[in-house]
């Protein structure tokens, strides 16, 4: 269960799970939604796979990721969204980014 909490603690990984709710996606399709490097994305996928929240399947040259969450894990993810976890984090991140831009 610790690995599940660790996986769900990161907003990028939560966003990946939200994207996979729409259906299986390749690593490339998921990565298009994020402004992070490929190794970083791979690390996020590895954490999610380790927690058993997603499964991967190699199809030709691409890797297809698919959601594999229990009802409890799904409820945990929804709980974080429902209580505005993402919204409360965003302004802080935005302020931080703005300060970094303004700093000469």
């Amino acid at each position, binding site marked *: 269960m610790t690995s599940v909490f660790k996986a769900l603690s990161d907003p990028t990984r939560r966003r990946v799970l939200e994207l996979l709710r*729409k*259906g*299986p996606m390749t690593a490339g399709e998921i990565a298009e939604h994020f402004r992070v490097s490929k190794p970083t994305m791979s690390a996020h996928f590895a954490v999610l796979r*380790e927690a*058993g929240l997603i499964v991967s*399947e190699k199809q030709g040259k691409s890797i297809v990721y*698919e*959601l*594999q*969450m*229990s*009802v*409890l894990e*799904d409820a945990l993810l929804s709980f974080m969204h429902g209580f505005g976890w993402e919204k409360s984090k965003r302004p802080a991140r935005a302020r931080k980014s703005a300060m970094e831009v303004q700093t000469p």
Partner: protein
Amino acid sequence: MKRFSLVATPTIGFLALTAVLVAVALGQRAGAIAPALAFRAIVAGLGLMTLLAGNFLPKLRPLAASEGRATRIAASERRAGRMLVVMGLALVALSLLAPVEVTRRIAPLVALAGVGWIELDWMWTAWISRPTPGEAAVSRSGGERRIIAAWMLFGLAYLLVTASLKFMVTDARWARDLGAWIVIGFTFAYSLMLVILDRRKRPS
């Protein structure tokens, strides 16, 4: 490790709860446990089994969706899982909070309605996901998990249906027969769904 825990956790939990239910039934028969207490314990045990099966259902992928229909089938599995969790919570709440007579009337209705809803939902999903002519679907892996899921679902369906009918109409012969037929119907619907959804790739 992850693979082991994914299969072992629901299996061990299910077997442990089955053992508890058998112990309670034997205890009641031997006169060691009062009938009202035994009834509450059996409903609570069935509720926990339902909760456990429902929680792990989307992970075990009993329908093992094939390529092209994965999203719709996965959504159906998630709906079934949520329905079982809600059913399980309702059964546990009834067993702990409601008077025995109320539980005796409502619990079977909750269980039968839930199993029936899942059966209908899966049949509907199978119908709308039926392959189009000439379509070659690729089978997905996960046989071991599917066996566990099927075993757990059939066991749960049998327990819920037979217990519900027994609570509703005591020990009538026709009720036992009806219970057997409902479970056979569930098995048939599940098998049909697998045949429709899990076709092998046709050789070109």
